[in-house]
């Protein structure tokens, strides 16, 4: 592992990374489907469901597995409640991040005090919410499929994001089913969603 790679990875968190030009590398037919999916995702006032997450880190002999439930609402942002392997709660809005393990006092980060943290979480929320403008700024978006069954590949447009993330693959139907984040150094994050309920 070289130093540069680490530095670049760290930078992933250090600056916000947003890019110009709306460039959807999809055939015209798919664009309609893409817009439909966008609307589907954006329409949801809130959704909640279960997740399982697998983080593959090459230097570890086995992947890190976790599971729990989550909710996402326009107002409150994302609530990520992990039950296994240890209970923890993460809430993320555009200006506030709270992390809490078990019954320990929560760790609160606010945008006013630690704006850097929020540069990255902004992207994460965009991915989760299907926020078109947010995603377009940072990624090239390739879309295939129909509004019922679709795949979307997000490729970072510029440095330093592209030095850390190879691609983000999203797939789903009416709602998002899976997120796969591929690291340039072959580490990987897979999040699967189930029992997702939507309130519009």
């Amino acid at each position, binding site marked *: *592992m*070289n*130093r540069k*790679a*680490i*530095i*670049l*990875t*760290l*930078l*992933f*968190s*250090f*600056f*916000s*990374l*947003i*890019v*110009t*030009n709306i460039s959807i590398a999809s055939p015209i037919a798919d664009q309609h489907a893409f817009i439909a999916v966008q609307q589907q995702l954006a329409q949801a006032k809130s959704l909640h469901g279960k997740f399982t*997450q697998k*983080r593959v*880190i*090459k*230097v*570890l*002999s*086995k992947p*890190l597995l*976790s599971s729990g439930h989550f909710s996402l609402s326009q107002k409150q942002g994302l609530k*990520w409640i*992990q039950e296994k*392997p*240890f209970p*923890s709660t*993460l809430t*993320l809005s555009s200006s506030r991040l709270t*992390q809490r*393990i078990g019954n*320990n006092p929560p*760790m609160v980060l606010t945008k*006013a*005090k*630690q*704006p*850097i*943290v929020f*540069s*990255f*979480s902004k992207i*994460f929320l965009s991915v989760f919410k299907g926020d078109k403008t947010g995603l377009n*700024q940072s990624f090239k978006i390739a879309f295939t499929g129909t509004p019922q069954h679709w795949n979307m590949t997000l490729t970072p447009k*510029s*440095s*330093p994001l592209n030095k*850390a993330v190879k691609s983000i693959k999203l797939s789903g139907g009416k709602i998002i089913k899976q997120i796969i984040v591929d690291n340039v*150094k072959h*580490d990987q*994050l897979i*999040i699967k969603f189930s029992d997702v309920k939507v309130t519009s």
Partner: protein
Amino acid sequence: MNRAFKIRFTLWLIVVLVFVSLFLRILFTDSGLNTNILDLLPKTTQDSSVHKASQLFTRQIGQKIIFLISNPNQALAEQSADNFYQTIAKSPLFSTINYKIDQLEQQSWASLYFPYRLSLLSPDDQKQLEKHNIQHIEQSALMALYSPIGISSSSLLEKDPYFNFQRFLTTLPKPAAVDLINSRPMIHANNRWYVLINAQLEGNSFSLENQNRVISLIEQAKTQALNTNKHTQVLMNGLIFYAKSGADSAQHEISTIGIGSVLGILLLVFLTFRSLSPLLLTLLSAATGFVAAFVVVKLYFSSIYLFTLVFGASLIGISVDYAFFYYADRLLGGDRWQASKGLKNIFIGISLGLLNVVIAYSILSITPFPGLKQLAVFAIVGLSMSYATVVCLFPLVLKACPLKHTPILLRLTDANLKLWQNIGQRKIKLIYSLLALVCLFGIVQLKTNDDIRQLQSLPQHLQHAEKEIKTLIGSKIGNRFYIIQADSPQKMLSKQHQLTSLLHKNFPEMATPYLSLSDYLPTAREQQKNYDLVTTQLIHHHLREYLKKIGMPPQQIQHTAQQLGAIKFKPLTLETWLDSPASKSLRFLWLGKVEQYYTGVVLLSDELPSNKLQLLAHQVPEVTFVDQATQVSHVFSVYRYHISILLALIYIVLLAFLVVRYGLYQGIQLYLPPLFACLVSLAMLGYLSIPLTLFNLLALILVLGISTDYVLFFAETYSSYRSTMLATFLSAVSTILSFGLLSLSSTAVIHDFGITVLFGITTAFILSPTVIKEHARSYSLRREPLV
């Protein structure tokens, strides 16, 4: 020609020639003009190294300019900013321009800190490790590993297994809420994309020549940006824009008001005397006074304050009175008028006038304030010289100039004289009583104000732009700062840490109360402490167990632990930090060695209260709080206080003087016009809701000097009240034209000065003939005229 006159003239000429040659020498070598208003404070409160550091820093921040180029469309915003940048980038007028941030620079923060990562901890991690709360650190690490938004990778886990370094980097304060987008610092707000360009000027913001060059270049760049797209807007902020606007309005005002008053006086003199030579001679008397005063002040004090020069120039208003008085006497002296006899007619009047001013300013000079001392010396020397010119030169050049016509002004003043001569003492008493009542009501409404921020009338559009920019970049950082001095860079740094922790403790609710480089660099001692905490508590004890728990194979654990264990302590020094490209935008907070001290600066938020900041400065040695606006306001208030006391004292001395010379009744009668000139001025300020400032009081001293001249001229007139009335009128009109017109100024300070003079002199002029009647009855009968 009288021999005595010739000797007097020769002496005068020698003195003038000496002064003029000295004046020219000073002018061509070093004018030594001191524009720093803080120097007007008594010397003990100013430490020279602090003063130097604060000047250095103020100059630096005065040279900064921020541009925000915006457009609703992101691409167009970037393009507009690029075009703007290209225009200014080529110019030598800027020493640095920060715009695009390349990859190397983006990585510079992480690259700078990475080798020192075991010595750098976020405040929370440091606290937990001090408490031996290893569990907390481990939990935070697990949280990061499992969190969907966590940034973890193989390489990170090896180099920073507990994510301490990551937390350190992400908790570093960010000076502005600006994001890096496409290598450009940008803000997305109000449905617009704003692109930030930061520039540092090469030259001085107060240099007029530099201002013109910079502003025209910026206009050019702005045109480039606006041509890119019609929706593009350019916001900018910098001291230079305020300085330029101030200089422009001052120039505009001085030229219109100045030309107006010069034309007015020219017309006045010409209409009255039908010749321009009186004007030239009058100006000569004023000019010799100014030159002599300048030379003496310069030689005695070595440097001369701008303050002295500006208010010293107001002496011209007094000095022309002597000449006018002489001229009026000549005008009405008829065919047989002789210069020497004319002089005798006015000699006592103008001598007493001068004596009065000398006493007034001598009282002013007792104060410990260098500004007032200078002003007093300037006034006394200047007026004495003007007086000498009138007394020594005028008798030689003035010839009888019989009245062939009755100038319109003379008819006016004659009418005024007649009017007053027909008003009885009883009526005059009534007028004074009514006036006293009017004054009383006005004066009770009078308020004071010394706040320079309110005295400066800053242009609205500039203030608006500044506010908008500050809101957009999320910065509350203002112009107040601490200067921190120490024997070594390390000590300076640790003092800064002491100070910033005090600030956090006192203002815990504030996210960014200050901007300090110490936030980006712990002291060597702190770093050593962090290193010891990390190595002993984490790496040597718990690391292996933790890595095993998250599933790292034994061989990999061995490798990771060995690699981390091999990192020796080496502090990140201020020098290294300063040399890194990462610190580019914060480097201005380090002033280097100023005199014998290593000096740094902590810039403060506008939201912090000055008095509290001042108190905190006392808690850390060699820390000075600098708030120039408040300091200047303080100078003003101290000066205002002292001058008002002195003014009262001068009025008492004046009364005593008048009573001693003219007896109780006459003395009081002569005393009333100068007194009411002052009271009416004050009352009008009250009625008009204009706060009393230092500048009003300085104007009142001028009013006092001139109005006392008027009554003394009347009191010492034995030949013709007509000439006195005419001289008084000429003096009043010229004073009003040269100073009263200043009340049209949009600059508050100048306006205040002008309006005070306007009301004071008008009142003095109107009331001065009230002294005639009684006096004419008693004195002119008792004494022979001095002719």
